[in-house]
């Protein structure tokens, strides 16, 4: 009698376990989307992460944000965790264009689509789609304005971002595709300041010692533009040297209004994040023909149109 009871109890428990497992993977449970971000130590990426997660939730999915802290090893852990925990897609801001490929491929092997946001991985086949600022075209527009503001002549300095970052070169190439057609515009120095404000200040201070007669600085992002401007103020050259940035950061847009910075390129992290989440939703519904790369337009902000962008930059 007691044996019969034990067998029945075991059967019941087994049925319960099987039943609960079935429910977990059932159609009623919302799919889970992992938002894996290079770093949340930068407000720009926080906006990217939170917008992606918000949009995913608005589309009816669960969303969880993972911070890679600019560490590819930690990023690998997040991918493994996402795969093991039953996530169905990854909205991804890579830590390293080359180093992150292996993580994307791991997800792909596990059947998870990966949608890159803002930063790309150097593999055309790894990610399902990569939604990126059109940095090249944005800097073509800035390059054109640069030539106009310089009256086609003068000495200038270019401050590059991280030399290993694809955005650094897309911006530089776009700028030079215009500016290099004007032989009287002479670049006296091209140095990396790693997208960092303090480093940009130090680099420009050093460059100014040998080249006090420059009339413009083109910077690969807005943090460097602010650092360059600080160096020019310290050297008493702020009114003589034109500074150009890229990003659309609030302090630079404010500085354009005040006449301290000449122009920047406004990027749209929210558009990139929302598009990535929408693509994931479309993927779940059966779509497969996504563009490998989807450029998002960058708009130039200058003195003439800055009032259009003051509110946007705050957000």
């Amino acid at each position, binding site marked *: 009698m007691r044996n019969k009871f034990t067998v029945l109890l075991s059967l019941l428990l087994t049925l319960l376990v099987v039943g609960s497992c079935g429910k977990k993977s059932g159609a009623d449970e919302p799919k889970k989307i992992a938002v894996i971000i290079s770093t949340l130590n930068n407000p720009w990426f926080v906006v990217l992460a939170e917008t992606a997660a918000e949009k995913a939730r608005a589309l009816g999915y669960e969303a969880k944000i993972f911070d890679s802290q600019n560490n590819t090893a930690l990023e690998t852990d997040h991918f493994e965790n996402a795969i093991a925990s039953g996530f169905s897609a990854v909205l991804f801001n890579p830590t390293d264009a080359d180093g992150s490929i292996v993580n994307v491929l791991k997800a792909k092997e596990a059947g998870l689509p990966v949608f890159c946001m803002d930063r790309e991985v150097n593999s055309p086949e790894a990610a399902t789609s990569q939604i990126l600022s*059109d940095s090249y075209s944005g800097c*073509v527009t800035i390059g*054109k304005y640069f030539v106009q503001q310089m009256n086609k002549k003068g000495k200038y300095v270019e401050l590059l971002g991280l030399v290993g970052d694809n955005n650094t070169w897309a911006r530089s190439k*776009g700028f030079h595709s215009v500016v290099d057609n004007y032989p009287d515009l002479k670049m006296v120095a091209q140095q990396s300041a790693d997208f960092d404000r303090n480093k940009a200040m130090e680099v420009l201070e050093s460059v100014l010692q040998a080249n006090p007669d420059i009339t413009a600085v083109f910077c690969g992002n807005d943090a460097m533009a602010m650092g360059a401007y600080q160096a020019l103020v310290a050297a008493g050259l702020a009114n003589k040297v034109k500074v150009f940035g890229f990003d659309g950061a609030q302090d630079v847009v404010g500085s354009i209004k005040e006449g301290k910075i000449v122009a920047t390129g406004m990027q749209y992290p929210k558009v990139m994040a929302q598009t990535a989440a929408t693509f994931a939703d479309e993927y779940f519904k059966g779509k497969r023909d996504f563009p*490998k790369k989807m450029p998002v337009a960058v*708009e130039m902000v200058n003195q003439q149109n800055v009032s*259009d962008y003051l509110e946007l930059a705050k957000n």
Partner: protein
Amino acid sequence: MLKKGIKYTVALILLLIVGYNSVYIKKLSEVKAAAATGKFDATLYAQTFWQEKLTPGLAKANNLPELLTLLKSDKENAFKNYSHALGIGNLRYFLIKGIGKITASNENDISVTLLPDSVGQEVKLATEFVYGNAVRDALGILSINDFSNTMDMNNVSAEINKKIRTEIIPPFRAQAKKSDVVAFTGAIELNQVHLRLDEIEVIPVSLNLIQK
């Protein structure tokens, strides 16, 4: 002892087979030629696009005065039905045509007043700063999936713009003067959120003086 000899002989043969099949020797010129075959040729692509797509496609260009009227009265309709762009965002491109009377020949552009006179709008025909994606995108027939990477797309724009700067503009600039009437086709870039119709710049595709 004999068995050992057979073992070594078999191992040597296997080693030779594996070694032989692991190494391939090709002429460097053949490898370079094969790589070049797969490389995207932006110049050729731009030339073919110009001749086979853009030139016949100009027949579909929007009449600029009519487009401006629509943009003022129903912006959403104008952007939805007549603008194109390979990417996403606020910047959109229109393929346009028009006739204008030259009011000024400037260093970097030529100002024209659109005809008929009742339109009363001045636009600029770019003659110096012909850059960007307006002409590539305005026709609306290219797809982002036509390109395997974004640099190819950028290079197509660069080649189209170079053709305009070197072949279309110089003969026109050499002849055009104030009060001449010009028939033009081209592309314009407009921001659908921050729309400004008072500073329209046309990237020209064709420029013909019809009255001097």
